């Protein structure tokens, strides 16, 4: 008989969440064809209250049997998601950990501290004697903090010196501005960590404009096609990237659907590693169809 699955994700307000929206809809379109008796309800929300409203509506008016959710702000969403669970729905949480354990049936996790740690490892390797680096952060929200802490822990005890960190809001324009000003301020920068490829794209333009693209390298994150292509091409400015694929949402939707339709037992945690993308393995991350 009919099964309804709700999918709730944050609004496409920067590259990575844009990718999440894209891959979620892709997966839904694909699975709708494969499983004609499964109906999907998709919603994206710019903030926690709206996202809570979305899942309340899914339960109250759309009669969902399962919920796949990438919570924009997991702490704020925990009790609302728990209500869905308590109403007897199957709950899959993606990427971000809720603040109480055991709410979700299935957790498909990204690894935010790992993203920071991976990048840190590369910096240590690329700058063994140490050197000045700057950090362009995302928005002041927990994921950013986890990435940042992971990175700082990773470079502890080295001679890498963080000159300053500023928020660039996961946004190309802000990446451009902050990088311009860092370049004005610091005559000697060896490396830039942006933790997000959208920010990188803005920062790259600023570095090129200042003509200092020979002096430094930049490490982003999330695996945007444009950057992966540059890595594959052996760019000196972007030698590596750290994966953090928005396609994890698709994995979560697929697993949940499989469970509901064919009773495949899925539970516990699926942690999708954040891996370092280098010239050697970049080809495996290229996907011309992806908008991200």
């Amino acid at each position, binding site marked *: 008989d009919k099964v309804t699955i709700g999918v709730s994700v944050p609004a496409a307000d920067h590259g990575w969440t844009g990718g999440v929206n894209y891959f979620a809809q892709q997966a839904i379109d694909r699975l709708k064809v494969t499983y004609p008796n499964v109906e*999907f309800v998709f919603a994206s929300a710019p903030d926690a*209250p709206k996202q*809570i409203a979305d899942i309340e509506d899914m339960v109250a008016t759309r009669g969902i049997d399962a919920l796949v959710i990438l919570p924009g702000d997991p*702490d*704020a969403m925990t*009790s609302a998601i728990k209500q869905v669970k308590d109403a007897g729905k199957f709950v899959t949480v993606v990427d971000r950990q809720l603040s109480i354990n055991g709410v979700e049936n299935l957790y498909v996790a990204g690894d935010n501290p790992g993203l920071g740690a991976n990048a840190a490892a590369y910096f240590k390797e690329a700058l063994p004697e140490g050197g000045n680096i700057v950090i362009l952060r995302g928005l002041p929200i927990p994921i*950013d903090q986890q990435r940042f802490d992971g990175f700082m822990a990773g470079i502890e005890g080295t001679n890498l010196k963080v000159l300053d960190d500023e928020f660039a809001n996961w946004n190309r324009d802000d990446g451009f501005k902050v990088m311009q000003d860092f370049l004005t301020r610091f005559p000697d920068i060896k490396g830039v960590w942006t933790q997000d490829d959208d920010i990188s794209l803005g920062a790259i333009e600023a570095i090129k404009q200042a003509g200092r693209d020979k002096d430094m390298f930049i490490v982003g994150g999330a695996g945007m096609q444009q950057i992966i292509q540059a890595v594959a091409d052996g760019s000196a400015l972007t030698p590596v990237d750290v994966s953090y694929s928005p396609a994890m949402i698709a994995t979560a939707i697929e697993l949940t659907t499989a469970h509901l339709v064919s009773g495949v037992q899925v539970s516990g945690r699926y942690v999708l590693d954040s891996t370092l993308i280098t010239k050697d393995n970049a080809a495996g991350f290229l996907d011309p169809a992806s908008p991200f």
Partner: protein
Amino acid sequence: MSASAPDTAAKPARGFRIDLKTAGPLLALALLVLLGITLNENFLSYSNLTNVLARSSFIGIIAIGATFVITAGGLDLSVGSMAAVIAGVMIMVMNWLIPSFGIGWSVVLAGMASGILLGGVAGVFNGLMITRGRIEAFIVTLGTMGIFRSLVTFLANGGTLSLNFNVADVYRPVYYDGILGVPWPILVFALVAIAGEILMRRTAFGRYCAAIGSNEQVARYSSINVDNVRLLTYILQGVLVGVAVLLYVPRLGSASSTTGVLWELEAIAGVIIGGTTLKGGYGRIWGTVVGVVILGLIGNILNLQSLISPYLNGAFQGVIIILAVLLQRERRTS
């Protein structure tokens, strides 16, 4: 000799005649409800309606405060950030009091008190800068919008402030329970709306707000203390933001730098859709309630169907907002 001709003038008092200006938003509301009913049979269900009303209550309560501010010719852009900082401080206060008070209602009540108090203080600050500092309300509250938002980011150290789970369990019923099946947020919203309506129509304060918004000089010459009345509108706004946050915290149990983003825009939109004049002089609490519910319903209706691409939600919202006001205008001129 008798003066002006009676037949061209004096119409009898209107008594309980329906105000055409009210009919506009009500009509838009009715059309939205109709749309909801056709889209989904569960639309009118008890749980859906209480869901929508309960979650509209934060913005609703804030918008009632905004109605007074706007009627008196002011503007408060800081309410969203203020909500965030109040939520953050409430959570910190409650977490901090657990060791001394233990888990229980006393902690929650202390948290609530601190929230209301902080709201009042924030309102006093905005109001004093505007009335005594003589700075445009737009600038003051744009400034405090940034200041409050920064403060909560700072307090949360860039992350999220979360309420202790045991306290959260005590506090939760304030959002999710109610009396006679009506959730508390709806009850509080209704109470605030009724009190607001009375304050606006039946007290000197409400009348003074309209007078000041309409013509400050006239108000001043009528020996109204313009600065104090205006200050009071900002304090009222702050306190009502505090009240809204009291209901918000048990729902989310956390606060971060993204809490309450764009609430100011939504609150002002609700006020204007409800028929209050943005330039001041005329305000209608009742209309604001309708306006906020319209905004809440639009979000709900978008979730009732899968026809519109979620990317176009904003467009749908925009069109409905314009239409809601267009209906009002049409009726007004006819």
